[in-house]
């Protein structure tokens, strides 16, 4: 247990120490929120869908968590580059614990970062239906964070060097975001797009948050939570397996 705790603590400490990184990573979600949110707002309203800010805020929170948790998983590459990974791999503790500690740490960091955006959304004018739903929103935030921190670990354990990182960002992380329904409603989509959005785990995370925060739903919060939990367990197992296979 202390092993998981200390590796979790390591991630959180490193996050809290990197003030510039915190501020820098707030940039893009705030841009989406401010520019897209207010820019597309009038059209959205005209289409009879209500407030766009209200619609996209859960999506932007989801995006922040996606980016932060994926990044922390892939940070395994940094550890490999700077050598710290070796230190943990020769330690007499099951690799599963190491992987869990890291992943929970990464997920916690992502939730913290998501909370900051939550506050930013609130400042911009986003209003949840009531205060009591906020804990449920956090449940979905946590599920999203675990799913993508685990996915990041799978990728981080499979890549050998930094060159693959850009590839992952462009061909995996960005599509996951754009296909998640964070920016547009999932109804009446072309068939292919509809199918793709349904295999994107973030779709269920965003929908879950949107359901509890604004009352607008596509799949229903129960389905969302079950899908996310299943994906999380699968990816955690995949991550543990990939992690156990790392050779240096």
């Amino acid at each position, binding site marked *: 247990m202390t092993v998981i705790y200390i590796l979790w603590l390591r991630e959180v*400490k490193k996050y809290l120490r990197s003030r510039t990184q915190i501020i820098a990573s707030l940039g893009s979600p705030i841009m989406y929120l401010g520019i897209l949110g207010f820019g597309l707002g009038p059209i959205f309203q005209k289409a009879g869908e209500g407030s766009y800010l209200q619609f996209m805020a859960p999506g932007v929170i989801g995006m922040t968590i996606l980016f932060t948790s994926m990044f922390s998983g892939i940070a395994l590459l940094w550890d490999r580059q*700077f050598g*710290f990974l070796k*230190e943990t791999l*020769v330690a007499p503790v099951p690799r599963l614990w190491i992987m869990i500690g890291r992943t929970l740490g990464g997920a916690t960091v992502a939730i913290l970062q998501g909370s900051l955006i939550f506050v930013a959304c609130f400042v911009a004018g986003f209003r949840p239906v009531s205060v009591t739903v906020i804990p449920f929103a956090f449940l979905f935030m946590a599920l999203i964070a675990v799913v993508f921190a685990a996915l990041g670990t799978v990728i981080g354990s499979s890549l*050998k*060097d930094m060159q693959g990182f850009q590839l992952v960002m462009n061909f995996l992380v960005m599509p996951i975001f754009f296909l998640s329904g964070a920016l547009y409603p999932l109804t009446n989509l072309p068939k292919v797009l509809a199918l793709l959005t349904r295999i994107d785990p973030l779709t269920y995370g965003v929908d879950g948050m949107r359901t509890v925060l604004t009352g607008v739903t596509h799949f229903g919060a129960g389905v969302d939570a079950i899908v996310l939990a299943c994906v999380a367990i699968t990816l955690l197992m995949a991550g543990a397996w990939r992690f156990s296979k790392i*050779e*240096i």
Partner: protein
Amino acid sequence: MIRVEKLVKRFGDVTAVDNISFEVPRGEIFAFLGPNGAGKTTTIKMLTTLLQPTSGSLELDGLDPTVNRDEVRKRFGVVFQDPSLDQDLTAWENMEIHGVLYGVPRKERRERATSLLQLFELWERRDALVKTFSGGMRRRLEIARGLLHTPKVLFLDEPTLGLDPQSRNQMWTHVKSLNETDQVTVFLTTHYMDEADRVAQRIAVIDHGRIVAIGSSAELKAQTNTDSLEGAFLALTGTSIRDESANSADSMRQIARMWRK
């Protein structure tokens, strides 16, 4: 304590370790000498469970590192050739994480960390981030950390690279005392012949992945008819400089390996 038999490790068509066998009894200080790229680090990586051998058998304290990984990991400590510190943490935090990973009880962990940081003159800087440390300080921290728990076998892979004579002296004195008082078996590699000569009871010279000679410093000198270990080493391995750097084919292979199957 360590037994290696017919060990082979291939990376693609490169044979890094080519059928080596040796034994290190409990309580011995054993040195592995060899030019760059001779297979020293690869051997250590296999003994420390980081790499799987292609063939051959390994034994550490009666256990197989490829099977009983966690049991084996409890028995050794290692100082790697290249850095393995977390630069975004402080010296103290690096020590703490190590102590927790090795299950050293809190009180003992703190005491030992304190005395080791003092011994390697890092105590004053214990709360500074490692990235602000000089190369020598990092190296010292790396060694201090490796000594935090008391292993049965201590692997030191070129531990003194880039250290000043004072720190080197400090380190070898400490290692020798660990060896004498706690019967710690030491397996070291180094490029400094004088160190090997001074601390090691037995020396194996490895070249191109094969052991070319094994014995005490005196035996090696006698065998090659030379009067210094350096002379013996050169007589055994030749004077040509080894090229360890990657050529273009290697870097292509590296990219191909980026996505492992």
